[in-house]
């Protein structure tokens, strides 16, 4: 019986040390604003910046990499649903490139539609029943780790994105995505 208790204790401790157990305040700092809240490592700095026509935020990692956090009408978006059909005009006339460096099929437009050449995977996910698009580098350190949310009814979009992050920071950012909570 005491053995079982011991194992249970060790198991609990291992998971209690992650950044995003909100009960461990020393390692997880909760950030709240009017539109969203999330949990970040204590060491990462969260700063507000004023742009030409909106305020935005940056998260600065321990490596001094900057992660953009934008919540507004002009936030960058990706067009996952807007892949061109193969029959689109002009599709074969402009893609004249040495292709031996790529793995490709015999149908270039299909390769493009499937994202064969892209640096990242794109995943549709939900956070609190809201659809988000997640962008994850195929190879750590090379590509964008991002989250994109477009509310229905012309509301404020949310974009979070960091580029060429270390493997460790990439994992932390993906956990930050999971800790996101939308306030409207």
């Amino acid at each position, binding site marked *: 019986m005491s053995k079982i208790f011991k194992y249970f204790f060790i198991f609990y401790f291992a998971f209690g040390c992650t950044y995003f157990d909100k009960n461990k305040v020393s390692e997880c700092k909760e950030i709240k604003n009017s539109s969203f809240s999330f949990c970040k490592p204590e060491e990462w700095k969260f700063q507000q*910046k*004023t*742009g*030409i*026509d*909106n*305020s*935005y935020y940056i998260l600065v990692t321990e490596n001094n990499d900057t992660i953009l956090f*934008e919540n507004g*009408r*002009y*936030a*960058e*978006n*990706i*067009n*996952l649903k*807007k*892949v*061109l059909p193969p029959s*689109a*005009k*002009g*599709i074969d006339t*402009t*893609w*004249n*490139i040495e292709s031996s460096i*790529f793995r490709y099929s015999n149908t270039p437009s299909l390769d*493009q*539609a499937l*994202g064969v*050449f*892209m*640096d*990242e995977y*794109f995943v549709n996910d939900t956070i609190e029943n809201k659809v988000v698009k997640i962008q994850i580098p195929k190879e750590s350190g090379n590509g964008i780790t991002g989250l994109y949310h477009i509310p229905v009814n*012309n509301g404020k979009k949310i974009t979070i994105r960091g580029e060429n992050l270390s493997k460790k920071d990439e994992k932390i950012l993906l956990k930050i995505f999971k800790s996101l909570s939308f306030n409207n």
Partner: protein
Amino acid sequence: MNGSDLSSTMFSRRKGNINLKNYKGWGQSMIPGAGKVFNGVNSSLDKIENFEVDYVVVNNLDEIRKNDNVLLIVDQLNKTNRGEEAAGYNEGSVSAVTSSTIKRGTFNQTSQHEIGHGLGADHSASGLMKRGGNNFNLSRRSIGKIMWEQAGYNGEGTYDNSKNNSQFNMTGKEASQKFIRDHVEDF
């Protein structure tokens, strides 16, 4: 705003035509990843050959015509945009720039940034559409986004046919009045 001295800006005359060369060029395809793969190659399906703005400076909302796109010059934006130099919509017919940008010498860049938003460009990592704005260059991505939203497969074919913003369901004057109520302090 009545009485703003625009003599040092790109709208220095009572009416005129401006050719914005920085809006010209090949755009990046809006297919995710395409721009990177075809770096250095014209990968877009569309190109902006020429970009001209016909403008008239007016001092009264009654002078705004039905299908005009409007750039307001205001003293201050209200609390929803407090401290910022401008406000507008991604695909919208009305935007506003604060008069303080004239003194700072950032009016032209800020105005062109808002024109970009009005045409459907969102923020980008560099150039004219950068959040902080650092130069006049419109990135290939922004050009591609404008073409995509206005004339491409996602667009309706013409700017004022855009269905993505309710401003296009109103006259220029009505849209301006609504914009002022929503975003401008003591107009």
